[in-house]
């Protein structure tokens, strides 16, 4: 059974295959009739047990544009509300013989947990706790790839800066695994409470196979210096009550990414944000809405990337998918 659980153990080829396939599906989304019959007769269940707008809508649209039957199950309408365990919910859904199950859950490795117990269903990780969000990182890469192709640059040898709450971020983890695999340098920026030094331990991003590509900077300016890509993470509003920051204003004073700073230290960079954005908290509106922002392109590529993932996982295809041949 083919799953997409995370990028920690993925390969360059897999990542590039997803990026290549995404290009094909981006084209489908520009058509007058945005639909291909590739997954006709296939059933996809989106089991989203944590609030989500874009990922859930994106997976749903992706499945529908591939002509699959897509069913959404959310936390408020699922039996987990009635005390059913995650495993029982998943077993029940499996008995309805879906071809793929997309799971979003607040528990780290919930997707791995289901993949271990459900033998007959392809599992796609739609974000698991603080662990990974592989489709987000892949769509970030597909977005960057399209941008750098236009600029006649490649997706390797880049300087990536990730700013904010790395500790709790599954998006950051998936991106670090993927970017280091591509040979990009990654600088993690934030206060020690949100970017602990132990992230560089040998059991984490200091592992030999990452070749020392990851480092930590406490100063926003120093960390952003000469970055090609700046990824800004969402600052979760509840973090101040857990003492991770003295107050949200303190966070903003020290780590809000503004156009002035970018102009000064990384004038050529582009900016990504996985959303939802807290404008004025972790990033200014001037940056989000400005020319270096790829935020909308991320959403656009999000649908195409998820089409590629659903197609790959359900049809077990690893290689570049040619639309013409398949139709």
């Amino acid at each position, binding site marked *: 059974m083919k799953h997409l659980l995370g990028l920690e153990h993925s390969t360059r080829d897999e990542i590039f295959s997803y990026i290549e396939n995404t290009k094909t599906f981006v084209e489908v989304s520009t058509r007058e009739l945005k639909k291909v019959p590739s997954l006709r007769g296939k059933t996809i269940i989106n089991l989203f047990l944590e609030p989500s707008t874009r990922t859930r809508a994106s997976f749903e649209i992706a499945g529908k544009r591939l002509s699959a039957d897509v069913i959404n199950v959310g936390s408020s309408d699922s039996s987990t509300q009635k005390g059913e365990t995650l495993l029982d919910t998943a077993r029940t859904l499996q008995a309805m013989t879906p071809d793929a199950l997309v799971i979003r859950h607040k528990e780290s490795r919930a997707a*791995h947990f289901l993949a271990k117990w459900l033998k007959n269903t392809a599992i796609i990780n739609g974000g698991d*706790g603080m662990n990974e969000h592989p489709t987000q990182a892949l769509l970030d890469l597909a977005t960057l790839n399209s941008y750098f192709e236009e600029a006649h640059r490649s997706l390797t040898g880049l300087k990536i800066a990730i700013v904010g709450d790395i*500790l709790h971020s599954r998006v950051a983890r998936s991106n670090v695994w993927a970017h280091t695999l591509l040979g990009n340098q990654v600088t993690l920026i934030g206060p020690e409470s949100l970017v602990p030094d*132990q992230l560089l331990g040998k*059991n984490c991003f200091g592992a030999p196979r990452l070749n020392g590509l990851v480092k930590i900077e406490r100063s926003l300016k120093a960390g952003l210096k000469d970055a090609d890509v700046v990824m800004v993470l969402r600052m979760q509003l509840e973090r101040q009550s857990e003492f991770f920051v003295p107050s949200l204003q303190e966070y903003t004073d020290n780590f809000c990414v503004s156009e002035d700073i970018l102009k000064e230290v990384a004038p050529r960079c582009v900016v990504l944000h996985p959303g939802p954005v807290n404008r004025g908290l972790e990033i200014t509106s001037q940056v989000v809405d400005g020319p270096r922002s790829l935020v909308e392109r991320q959403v656009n590529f999000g649908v195409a990337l998820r089409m590629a993932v659903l197609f790959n996982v359900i049809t077990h295809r690893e290689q570049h998918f040619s639309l013409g041949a398949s139709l």
Partner: protein
Amino acid sequence: MNSSLLLSGGHLVDPSLGVDEKRDLLIEDGLVREITQPGAIKAHRGVELFDASGLLVTPGLIDLHVHLREPGEEWKETIRSGCDAALAGGYTTICAMPNTKPVNDNQNVTRFIMERTAQINGVRVVPIGAVSKALQGKEMAPLSELYLAGCRAFSDDGEPVWHSGLLRRALEWAKLLDVPIACHEEDKHLSCAGCMNEGDLSLRLGLKGMPAVAEEAMIARDIEIARSVKGKIHICHVSTARGVELIRRAKNDGVLITCEVTPHHLVLTEEAVLNYDTNAKMSPPLRKLEDCEALLAGLSDGTIDAIASDHAPHHLDNKQIEFSKASFGILGLQTNMPITFDLVARGKLSRQQAVAALSTMPAKSFKLEGGSLARGKVADITLIDPKRRWSFNQEINRSLSLNSPFFGREYSAQVLGVIISGSVKYDLDRRYALFSDKKGEDAGAA
């Protein structure tokens, strides 16, 4: 009443006597009557015999930290099943933590446990009473009432004694009874809902961590409280290098402190969490290799007194779920001795140290009967074959629960017999017989 039992051909390991040599033991009326050179006592008609040749003869094993789950959660473990597991694991005495439902915070619960125990298999169950009512850290439990009913230590295990003032007063009262307070050391503001050791691995896996300092800060606090009132304190399941160092210093300073370590903290590291096995989830969590090494060093130099199982049965329903929701803890009664003797086989501990940590020192820590086979002492004895390969599996398991990461593991030491108060309670190889002039005519084994 027992007549006499001759334990012949065995190799006595008794740290209280400093003996690690072949010895025969004669037991009369439940007590050790004589320790002699091999063959010095000739069997005669009417004497019971236990052929201990090839076996280690040790004072009965004593576990300071067991959760029996009865009353209240009998689907996980009962006093009966717990005692069965204890006997099969070589234990003659186990101390039962009070976090049952209801909590053992009054004499009714203590008496229930004592009465239930009396009808089982001879294993002595020593109840540990709660420090605070319902383990809530608000009102003190009736310590002397609990003592009179049979409790020989107090603990809020599972919870720290949150209220430092309450701990201070409880230590003062416990001095009257001359019993220790056993502390589960965890500052919950620091360990806040974590489910594994905090560090680079928890950061990689995206799991909430329980930092070492959550344990160490409480150990430091409790050492200072114990020092100031000259109370007797016992640190449960120490798991970090720094924790061992704090205890070492306190002992040097003359604080009345003892402590225990679990076998799993000695031989497993946090990496056991990697495959998401909820049987690698415990509190305190499995730590790093450096910590394992410091714990071993602490055992070797006597800083750590006892190896205790923290035997914590949980139903599969509480383990076959998401990691953060899974219950803390694993079984231990049947794997403690074999894991400890594996450390002996690997040269990490001497045989004397192993037996001291499994019997002599636990007895001293809680001032319990046993722990020594000196003349006149109670004849609680464990017989171990140090060279028999076996593997722990579900058939051998006597607990009602299955939460052990050690199923399928091979061990080189096996419990072959247990004698409690001079009577043979466990005899795997049927080595026990009434002496008869006709060779080979064995009367029934126990």
